[in-house]
C-alpha cells in the first residue's frame, strides 16, 4: 500500500472549480508523474493555498491520499511565472503547452524530462524568444518523450536513407519510391532543423535561423505529426495562438 502522505515538486497545468470553494488542480510532478489533486478552499479570498495552486506555478506540494483525489495539505512556491498573467498572448501559448502536456502524458509514470522541458519553456517565455520555434520544438520533444518519435532518418516504409517527403498519415519520412499521395516535400534543411528541434535544449532554439519555407514545412510536419497521434481539433487552446 502506498504512503498516506507524500511530497512532490510540481507545475500547475490546469485548475478547475470543484464544489463551492475548492479547486481541482492538474499537476505535473517530477516524482509522481501527472495527476489531479484537490486544493480545499482555494477559491476563498483568504485562502493561503490559492496563489500557490494557480496556473503557471512551480512549487513544492505535500499531499494526503484522499478517497478520490489526493488533497493538497501544504505548498511552497518556488517560482511564479507572472508573464503569463500579464500578457494575453503568452497566456494562450502557456495554456497550449499545458494542454499538450496534459494530453500527451498519460500520468501514471514520472516523466522528468518533460517536467524539465516545460519548466524551461515557462522560463523562456519571459525572454524575447521565438515562440514559433519554441512551440514546434516543445511539440516534437513532447511527442518524443511520449514515445511517438517522428521517424526522420530513413524511409519509414523501406529503410532507404535518402528521404524526400513526410507522410502525416504514416507519421514519418518516405523515399521517392515509397512516396504516398498525402506526403509533403521536405527539403534537407528542414529535416536538419527538425532534428535540431528534437535534440537541442529549448534554450538553444532561439539560435536557429530557419528560412521562411523551412518554417512553413516545419509547421506542416509538426501539425501533421501531432494529428497522427492525437486529434489536434481537440486541442482547444491551439485556436487562440497568434503567429503560430
Amino acid at each position: 500500500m502506498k504512503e498516506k502522505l507524500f511530497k512532490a515538486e510540481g507545475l500547475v497545468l490546469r485548475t478547475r472549480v470543484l464544489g463551492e470553494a475548492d479547486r481541482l488542480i492538474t499537476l505535473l510532478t517530477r516524482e509522481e508523474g501527472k495527476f489531479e489533486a484537490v486544493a480545499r478552499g482555494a477559491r476563498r479570498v483568504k485562502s493561503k493555498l490559492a496563489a500557490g495552486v494557480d496556473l503557471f506555478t512551480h512549487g513544492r506540494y505535500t499531499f494526503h491520499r484522499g478517497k478520490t483525489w489526493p488533497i493538497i495539505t501544504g505548498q511552497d512556491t518556488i517560482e511564479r511565472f507572472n508573464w503569463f498573467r500579464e500578457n494575453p498572448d503568452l497566456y494562450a501559448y502557456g495554456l497550449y503547452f499545458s494542454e499538450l502536456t496534459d494530453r500527451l502524458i498519460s500520468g501514471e509514470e514520472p516523466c522528468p524530462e518533460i517536467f524539465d522541458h516545460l519548466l524551461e519553456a515557462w522560463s523562456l517565455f519571459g525572454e524575447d524568444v521565438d515562440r514559433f520555434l519554441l512551440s514546434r520544438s516543445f511539440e516534437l520533444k513532447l511527442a518524443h518523450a511520449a514515445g511517438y518519435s517522428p521517424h526522420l532518418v530513413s524511409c519509414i516504409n523501406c529503410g532507404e536513407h535518402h528521404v524526400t517527403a513526410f507522410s502525416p498519415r504514416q507519421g514519418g519520412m518516405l523515399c521517392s519510391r515509397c512516396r504516398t499521395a498525402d506526403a509533403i516535400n521536405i527539403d534537407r534543411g528542414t529535416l536538419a532543423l527538425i532534428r535540431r528541434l528534437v535534440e537541442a535544449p529549448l534554450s538553444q532554439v532561439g539560435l536557429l535561423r530557419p528560412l521562411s519555407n523551412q518554417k512553413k514545412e516545419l509547421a506542416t510536419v509538426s501539425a501533421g505529426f501531432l494529428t497522427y497521434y492525437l486529434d489536434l481539433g481537440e486541442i482547444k487552446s491551439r485556436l487562440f495562438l497568434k503567429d503560430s
Partner: protein
Amino acid sequence: MVYPGALKKLVDMFCRFPGVGPKTAQRLAFFLLGCPREEVVAIARAMVEAKDRLSFCPVCGSLAEDECPYCSDAGRDHHLLCIVQEPRDVLILERSGQYKGLYHVLHGALSPLDGIGPEELKLEQLVNRIRDTGIEEVIIATNPNVEGDATAGYLAGLLKPLAVMVSRIAFGLPVGGDIEYADDLTLSRALEGRREM
C-alpha cells in the same frame, strides 16, 4: 439503506446542489418533511418563480426581473462601467454599497482550455456598448487569478482605441488576515494599491 421512493428522489435532488453531499441532502429532506405543508409549497414556489422571472439583462448581463435594476436606474453614474466575470459578482459589489456606476457581466473569463475566447465572451458587444454610450471610465474587476488577470490584460488592450479611462480593481490583503501569511504577489499588489492616510 432502504428509502421510501419519494424520500430518495428528494435526497437525490438535493445532492445536485453545489457543496451538498448525501448527509446534508438527507438533513435538508427531513427538514422539509418537518415543515407545515404551506411552507413547503412556498419554498417550491419561490424556486420556480425565481427561475421563471429572472433573466439576464440583454445590455449588461446582470440578473434582472422585467427591468434591469442597474441599467434602468437614472440615479446611477452612466459614465462609469464595471466589468465583472459572474452575475454573482454584481451582487457582491452592490453589497459593498461603494459603487454607483453600471455593470457589464462577461459570464466567464478567457479560458482557452475550455474553448472560451473573446467571441464566447461577446467582447465585441462590450466594445460597441462602450463606444456607443457615454461611458468614460471602465473598472475591470475580474478575479485576481491568472485567468482573470489575463482577461483584464486582454480587455485593456481591446479598450485602448476607445480612449476611455481603464483601471483594474486593486487587490490587497484580506481583512482579518495576518501579513505574515500573505503570499508575495498579494503583498506586492497591496503595496501598489496603497492609499494615503
